């Protein structure tokens, strides 16, 4: 596997395949991600990009090939899976906050029950994180009382509270009203600049241009093209990439 900075990649995927019954969703994905790298995955809907990042913390199981995260290979061993999930944070399209808990409780749940931190320490860290994502004053509110953008930022804080080495973002702004997209992207950009390893499924090309080290273009379960934002935006090699970019960048 090639690396850009010489150290071992933190995520290694070799020939990853997945089927939903007879439907072949992922058809041999090869991808290595370095520590601190920000990779944006884009492509038409149904191309398997969400399924792919969900295999990295094993919300989806792959059936062939290997995925190695932070030196641990994903297998059926539940202890391996739970160990990896502790190191990998995830942010979802539909936020998936726990509606019966306050914003603060959403953030402290993982540290208290998984990391076994004392409640007081977990709350201190949680308040710092809510501050970092710009909504310290919403700590005691329930998700239903927050706007979509605020909910997604709580979700980011919830994932960060586990102090993950890797953050996965599954279309984090697709369910948001236009005026809220920026507040979430700003948080993500700040996170990228802080050196977090990030895998982002998104069509926000402005974000990709500003924050990504690499872009990966998915079509029908295959990586069609990957490269730096420069290469992809200014000089795409594949016809399909050109066509897709022209479609989403038109307006």
């Amino acid at each position, binding site marked *: 596997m090639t690396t850009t900075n010489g150290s071992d990649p933190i995520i290694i995927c070799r020939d990853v395949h997945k089927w939903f019954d007879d439907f072949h969703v992922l058809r041999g994905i090869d991808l290595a991600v370095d520590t601190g790298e920000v990779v944006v995955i884009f492509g038409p809907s149904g191309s398997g990009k969400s399924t792919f990042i969900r295999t990295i913390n094993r*919300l989806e199981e792959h059936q062939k090939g290997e995925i190695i995260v932070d030196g641990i290979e994903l297998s059926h061993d539940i202890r391996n899976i739970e160990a990896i999930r502790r190191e990998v944070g995830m942010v979802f399209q539909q936020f*998936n906050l726990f*509606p019966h808990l306050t914003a603060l409780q959403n953030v402290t*749940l993982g540290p208290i029950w998984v990391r076994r931190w004392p409640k007081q320490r977990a709350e201190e860290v949680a308040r710092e994180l809510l501050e970092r994502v710009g909504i310290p004053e919403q700590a005691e509110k329930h998700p*239903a009382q927050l706007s979509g953008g605020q909910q997604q930022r709580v979700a980011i804080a919830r994932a960060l509270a586990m102090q993950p080495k890797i953050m996965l973002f599954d279309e984090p702004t697709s369910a948001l009203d236009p005026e809220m997209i920026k507040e979430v992207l700003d948080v993500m950009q700040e996170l990228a600049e802080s050196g977090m390893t990030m895998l982002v499924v998104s069509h926000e090309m402005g974000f990709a241009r500003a924050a990504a080290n690499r872009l990966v273009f998915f079509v029908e379960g295959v990586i069609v093209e990957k490269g730096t934002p420069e290469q992809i935006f200014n000089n795409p090699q594949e016809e399909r990439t050109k066509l897709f970019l022209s479609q989403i960048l038109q307006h």
Partner: protein
Amino acid sequence: MATIISDVKRPVERSNLLKWLRQNLFNSWYNSLLTLAALWVLIRVAPPLVSWLLAANWAPVLTSPALYFVGQYPAAELWRPAIGVVFISLLFGLSWGVWRGPLRTFALASMAGYAVIALLPVSLDTLGLTGRLFFAANILVVILGLAASRTPLGKARWVILLGLLAFGTFILLVRGFPGSELLPQIQTTRWGGLMLNLLVAAVGIVASFPLGVLLALGRRSNLPVVKLFSTLFIELVRGVPLITILFLGSLLLPLFLPENVRIDRVIRAIIGITMFSAAYMAENVRGGLQAIPLGQYDAAKAIGLSGPLTTILIILPQALRLVIPTIVGQFIALFKDTTLLIIVGINEILGIGKSLVLGNPTWITAQIEVYLFIAFVFWIFTFAMSHSSRRLEKALGVGER
């Protein structure tokens, strides 16, 4: 000149009787017709009903009201269930302080009830001065409980713990111990009346709730044996009428047990009712579990929560909240179903009423009065249950998330 928008006031809507009548009773020709029809029925039915109520023979109820509540429990030992009443008053006061809204109504209603009993007209007096003073004192106990909720004792977990402890103590107290001087054992054959209905219902509710939740989780389990057992249990028990289960427990079970093993008949009834209720509870809870979006499981997994923790911290709290109305409905049904114990010869309130009527030739014509009274007693309790459930739903924000 343009009006400044902030100066425009929302028009005040006046309400008056005529408008109310038009909106609520006569807003269309068929509503007017229905209103008139209802009025006609009311005029025809209400006066005879009231005069019947006044002329009715309430003697079977008024002669010995205590019988309906404690049955044949020895009069000299009545102080034991009385302590149970004190427990309940204390817990009402405490819960009022701790949970506020939903339980305040309960506490206030119980105080009102005590006041009514303590101030009953002399002609209806079967309590004696001691009884009156006892119920009056219970008003103070509720207030005492409220005061105690201001102390460190006023935490939800302490009140729940205290409630369970008081419940266990109460059962031991009422049963007594064989060979004891102070607390001679009182056979369950002498227990009776509403006390028994409440006892069976309370044990049934407390036991069937966790059992039902476990069965619901079992039915959704990935472990084939657990799943099979849960499904079989639920479907078998739900497929059989409660009466059959009670009969099986009371007649058949003793035949299968060894000679020297005797399970008390009240306990057998409780086991039957608990099993029955647990099976229904399981299906209700399962409905709630199915309503939880898959994203909740994803999010819990993504922060590394284990399966059991996900169930306890994320899924169950949401699922149970969704099914509160159904669960309370089921508890109300369970409470009313305790009257079926009459069929296996347990002297619950309906049984007492029946034997009173049939045992006294002069009262045989007063059956309606007795059953009306019993219905009224049940209504008070079930109304309190459904009222508090609605308050609980409001407090938890069910249906508005």
